[in-house]
C-alpha cells in the first residue's frame, strides 16, 4: 500500500519490560505484570483511559519511576542502577504540559538547557540547539521569552528542548492536547520525519485518528495490563474490545465496519483509504451493471 505509514524499524530491541509491576506507595498496583518489547525505529501509539497506566509505564522507560517488581531493559541492559540524568541521553521524555518545564529567558537557552546538562562542549550544544530550533521551526523565536509565547509554540519549544539532547528514543505524553488541527498535524509530520531518520517514538494519546494515520504500531493499556499490542491495523480489528475500554474509534473506522457487508474494506483506517475502497466498489458495480445489460 502506498499510503501505509512508513516504518523504519529494525530488529534491534531498544526497550523491553519483563513482568513489570508498579504501585504508588501503598495503593493498589498501577501496573500489573507488563512484558513487552519495542524495536529500535518503531513509532508506537500508547493508548488507554486515564488511570490505565500509560504515563506510569512510560515513566519507567527513562527511570523516573522504578519497578516495584520486574525489570526494564534498555538495549538489553537493566536500567536499575542508571540515574535519570544519564538515561536522558538515550530516552527523551516530553511532559504533557509545556508550562511544567519552561523556565528560561529565551527560547534558545531553554533548548540548550538539556544538552548543557549532558556536559557537551559549547560548540556541540549550540549546534544541537540551532538544529532543534530549525526542525521545529522555532528559529524566529530564538530570542523570545518562551513563557509568553502562544500555547502551540510553547508546546513545540518543550519538544525541541528534549529533542536537542538527541535521544534515540523519544516519548511524548499527549503532545497534541489543546492544539488545533493545523498545529496537530504539523507536529505529527515533524515527529514522522524524526521517525524516518531512525528515532524510536512513543506517542501517548487519546486521539485514535492520529494513531490510525501516523503510528504503525499501537499499544492499548487497561487497568495496568497490556490489553493489545500489535500493528495498528490489527489492533483496530478489536473494535469491540476497544469500545469496552472507552476508546473512541475514528468515524472512518466505524463507517468502514458498517459498510463492510456491502463490500467496502473493513479495515480502512483513514479517509483516503475508505474513499478509495468505496470508489472501487462503485466502479466495479458499474462494470457489472454495464456487463449485465
Amino acid at each position: 500500500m502506498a499510503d501505509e505509514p512508513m516504518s523504519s524499524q529494525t530488529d534491534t530491541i531498544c526497550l523491553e519490560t519483563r513482568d513489570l509491576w508498579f504501585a504508588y506507595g501503598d495503593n493498589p498496583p498501577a501496573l500489573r505484570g507488563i512484558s513487552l518489547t519495542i524495536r529500535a525505529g518503531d513509532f508506537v501509539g500508547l493508548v488507554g483511559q486515564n488511570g490505565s497506566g500509560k504515563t506510569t509505564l512510560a515513566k519507567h522507560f527513562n527511570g523516573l519511576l522504578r519497578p516495584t517488581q520486574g525489570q526494564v531493559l534498555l538495549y538489553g541492559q537493566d536500567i536499575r542502577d542508571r540515574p535519570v540524568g544519564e538515561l536522558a541521553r538515550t530516552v527523551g521524555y516530553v511532559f504533557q504540559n509545556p508550562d511544567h518545564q519552561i523556565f528560561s529567558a529565551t527560547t534558545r537557552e531553554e533548548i540548550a538547557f538539556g544538552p548543557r546538562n549532558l556536559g557537551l562542549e559549547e560548540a556541540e550544544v549550540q549546534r544541537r540547539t540551532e538544529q532543534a530550533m530549525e526542525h521545529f521551526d522555532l528559529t524566529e523565536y530564538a530570542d523570545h521569552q518562551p513563557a509568553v509565547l502562544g500555547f502551540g509554540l510553547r508546546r513545540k519549544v518543550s519538544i525541541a528542548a528534549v529533542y536537542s539532547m538527541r535521544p534515540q528514543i523519544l516519548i511524548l505524553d499527549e503532545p497534541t492536547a489543546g492544539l488545533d488541527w493545523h498545529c496537530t498535524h504539523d507536529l505529527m509530520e515533524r515527529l514522522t520525519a524524526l521517525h524516518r531518520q531512525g528515532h524510536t517514538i512513543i506517542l501517548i494519546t487519546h486521539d485514535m485518528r492520529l494513531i490510525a494515520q501516523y503510528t504503525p504500531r499501537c499499544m492499548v493499556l487497561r487497568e495496568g495490563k497490556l490489553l493489545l499490542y500489535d500493528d495498528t491495523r490489527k489492533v483496530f480489528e478489536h473494535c469491540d474490545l476497544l469500545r469496552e475500554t472507552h476508546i473512541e474509534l475514528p468515524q472512518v473506522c466505524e463507517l468502514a465496519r458498517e459498510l463492510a457487508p456491502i463490500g467496502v474494506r473493513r479495515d480502512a483506517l483513514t479517509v483516503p483509504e475508505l474513499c478509495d475502497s468505496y470508489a472501487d466498489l462503485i466502479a466495479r458495480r458499474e462494470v457489472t451493471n454495464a456487463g449485465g445489460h
Partner: protein
Amino acid sequence: MQVGIDLFVLRKSWLHEIDPRVKLFFVAVSIIILLVFKNIFFMLTALVLLHLLHWSAKIPRDRILFVWKTLMPVAILICVLWVVFYPAGDPLIQIWMVKITLVSLAQGAVLGLRIMTMAFVVFAWLYSTDQPSIVRSLVKLKMPFEWGLILALALRYIPTFQGMYAVISEAQQARALNISEGKGFGRVRTLMPIFVAMVISALRASDQLARALEARAFGAHGVERTYLRDISFRPLDWVFTFAIFATALLLLYLNFRYGFGRQPISLF
C-alpha cells in the same frame, strides 16, 4: 496516608459538634496555660488528658501517631539541646564537657513536652473541624471574608502545588538536571529551573483562579453574603466556654498565688 490537606477527620463526636469558636477559644487558652506552666508532671498530665480528648473525639490512631511522628524529632532535639547547653544544679553524670543535671533534664523534658501538648491542642481543633467551618468561625469573629477565603484557598491549593512541584521536578530531571547536585547556594542554583517553572505555572494558575472567582460573582457590590452552612452557638457551647474559662482561671490563680506548676520537678 495523605496528610497536609484534609486534616479534617469526618466523624460523629461531641468534639466535632461543638461550635468551632469554642474550639478556637480552647486552643488560645490552652496555649497560654502551656506557656505559663513549667512543671513536668503538669505537662505529662496534660499530654494524657489530650490523648483522652482525641480518643473521645474518635480520632483514628494513625492520625495521633502522625502528630508524634511529625513533631517528636523537634521535641527531642529541643530537649537535648537544653540539657546540653543549660545545666543547672548538681550533675547526675558528666560526659567529657557535658554535665547532665536532674533539673536541666526536667526543664528539657518540659520544653519538649510543651511542643507535643501544644501540637495535640491544635490538632484536636484541626482534626475535628472542617475547613469551611474554620473559615466561617474566623469570619464570625470579625475577620474579613476575603481573608478567610484566602486562607481557605491556600489550604485548598497545597496539594495542587505539591503535585505541580513533583511534576516539574520530574520534567527537569528528564532533561538531565541532576537535582542532588551542589550544596548551599550551589544547590539553590541547581533547583532554579524547577523554582522558576513553578512560579510561572503558579502565576498562570492564580490568573485562572481569579477569573473563575469572578465568574462566580465573587465581589458582588451591595449584596450581603449568605452562607449555606452556618454555625451557631448552642447552650452546650456556652457550657463548654464557661468550663474552659473557669478551669483556666483556676489554674492561673493557683500558679500566680501559690506557684503551682512553676518549678520543673516539685508541683509547688
